[in-house]
């Protein structure tokens, strides 16, 4: 249609001004735009920790002795365990059931005798594995402790065979294993997905629901002017949110930016566009704001769960990875972590850039087909 060919900058500016005015009046939305990144950053950075320390631990000491004592001391020193006290075997189940302790370590009768004879004695560790992820760090520490504590003090013949291996875990990019390093770049993507898709999804349906769309359609404004005029404010908002997150993460969590900042912003812009096209498409399909909101959440949930933000991407089954690979967030996470923590360049990131481009193109094709230029 010839209507796309006439683009009036004056009309476009008018729509832009109107959108900003409405945004300014909408205090709740405005508060959300600024508040969500800050609150989520603080929550995820400080409150939510997938590598918890100081887990309450009880000890069943059926055979007290020097080795057992030094093992318990080593556990406490590892900072993963907080020894709440010695108990007898019957209390163990009770404490675990009630959730008062996360671990119960049992030194069985004859522990020291067997150790001295070189017969590996059983050291029973009962863990509350309701949250397996949270236990991971602590359990891996236990394995190492056994080797470090018992080996040096034993006479040569009694050292466990095969000889203890010097196990070293080298954590690259995040040597201290700080959750914030992983979460902050991810949070950037999650917040952008949520606000961009939701806001634009509501932008068009709101006009339709309030009846103002009819007025807009009766003016000479073209669809291109209306769409781009509505999108621009959200692009600015998205860039603002990213700046907010980056600044906060630098000040509060000391997260470095190893790569190029312009490249990061370029990638952010690409990711914003992918989400905006999706939002606009949702709003042209949805009949009202509620439907648009439902569609947003339908998209948001797999984005959070399957992108590698919440759970390790490599640990997911093949079909889940396939779905995850379609989502722009999956690729944006890799890009953001790459630029921030590893200093990756565009060439290295390209395998994650084209899937976002492809997604945007496909959604745009659907969106332009469903955009209603009339009230039909």
């Amino acid at each position, binding site marked *: 249609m010839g209507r796309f060919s006439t683009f009036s900058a004056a009309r476009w500016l*008018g729509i832009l001004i109107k959108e900003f005015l409405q945004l300014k009046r909408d205090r709740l939305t405005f508060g959300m735009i600024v508040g969500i990144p800050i609150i989520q950053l603080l929550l995820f950075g400080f409150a939510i920790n997938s590598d918890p320390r100081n887990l309450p631990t009880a000890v069943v000491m059926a055979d007290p002795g020097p080795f057992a004592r030094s093992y318990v001391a080593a556990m406490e020193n590892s900072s993963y365990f907080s020894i709440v006290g010695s108990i007898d075997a019957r209390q163990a189940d009770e404490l675990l059931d009630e959730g008062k302790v996360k671990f119960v370590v049992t030194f069985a009768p004859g522990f020291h005798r067997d150790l001295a004879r070189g017969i590996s004695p059983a050291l029973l560790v009962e863990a509350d594995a309701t949250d397996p992820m949270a236990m991971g760090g602590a359990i891996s520490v236990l394995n190492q402790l056994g080797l470090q504590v018992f080996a040096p003090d034993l006479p040569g013949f009694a050292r466990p065979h095969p000889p203890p291996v010097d196990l070293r875990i080298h954590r690259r990019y995040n040597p201290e294993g700080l959750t914030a390093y992983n979460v902050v770049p991810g949070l950037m993507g999650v917040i952008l997905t949520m606000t961009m898709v939701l806001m634009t999804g509501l932008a068009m349906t709101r006009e339709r629901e*309030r*009846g103002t769309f009819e007025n807009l359609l*009766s003016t*000479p404004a073209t669809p291109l002017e209306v769409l781009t005029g509505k999108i621009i404010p959200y692009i600015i908002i998205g860039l603002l949110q990213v700046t907010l997150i980056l600044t906060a993460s630098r000040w509060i969590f000391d997260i470095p930016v190893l790569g190029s900042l312009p490249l990061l912003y370029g990638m952010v812009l690409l990711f914003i566009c992918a989400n905006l096209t999706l939002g606009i498409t949702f709003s042209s399909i949805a009949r009202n704001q509620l439907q648009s909101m439902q569609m947003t959440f339908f998209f948001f949930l797999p984005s959070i769960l399957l992108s590698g933000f919440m759970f390790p991407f490599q640990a997911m089954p093949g079909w889940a990875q396939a779905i995850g690979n379609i989502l722009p967030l999956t690729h944006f996470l890799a890009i953001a972590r790459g630029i921030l923590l590893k200093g990756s360049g565009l060439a290295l990131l390209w395998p994650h850039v084209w899937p976002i481009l492809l997604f945007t193109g496909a959604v745009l094709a659907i969106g332009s087909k469903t955009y209603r230029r*009339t*009230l039909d």
Partner: protein
Amino acid sequence: MDAPLAIDVSGLNKHFGDKHVVKNLALQVREGEIFGFLGPNGSGKTTSIRLLCGLLTPDSGRGTCLGLDVVKDSARIKPQVGYMTQRFSLWDDLSIEENLDFIARMFGVADRRRAVTRTLEELGLASRRRQLAGTLSGGWKQRLALASCLLHRPRLLLLDEPTAGVDPKARRDFWEEIHHLSASGITVLVSTHYMDEAERCHRLAYLSCGQLLASGTAEEIVSSLRLNTWEISGHKLHGLTSILRQLPGVEMAASFGTALHASGRDAALLQTSLERALAGRSLHMQPIPPSLEDAFIHLMQGSQDPYGGNRH
């Protein structure tokens, strides 16, 4: 003597799913006249108006609006038309001035600031320019909506039930304004449910179930129906209308204030039926010239609302 036609369409059809909402609409509106669009709820008035201003594309049919093709040139028609929607459709969260400024930008009004200021003064809203449109009362919303339609000096005004929910004083002021605009050469097409408003129009069209049942001046419509009307007055009129409706020759019976009107096309049959039914009752009956309202109620009773909904 006939002025050129502002609207000249024929054979317009529009379906929503399997509902045939506008059936073979043919309409001629002369430049500078006030044309009234009447019909019950769901008769296709709003759809017809939307077809004329390019908000809907007709399934079939053709015609011109301001000399431009309604199907192909809708983008060129829009800048010359002012469309006032049935529901208030300006932005509640923008101020009066911001709304006018936005509409002026959309239509590329020359000397925008002056046009907006002048409109604010004409409306008497200059002191409340910063008030949000959503906080205005019904009458003021309607005036603001009309003002926003006039900012770009359109040649044709399409008003969809502009006075619904507005008090009588504001209604009268509104119609003064419409006549004023018409005198300055603007063509006005207005849909309404009110008889007094219908009588203020130069010409009328009556729409029912998407079909144009009658059109012309008020006198033409009344006389074309060839109705004979009797006025029945007296005490104990209660319940009489339903009895009268059953009688042969009575096509329409309805209460008008303290009296009843009964109409039918067969004068002799109507008279004998009425006289027989009213015999023995202390009621007075006399023939009167049928009014526009008699004509419309007659048209309305002759056709049923097929949708029962409120799509106009």
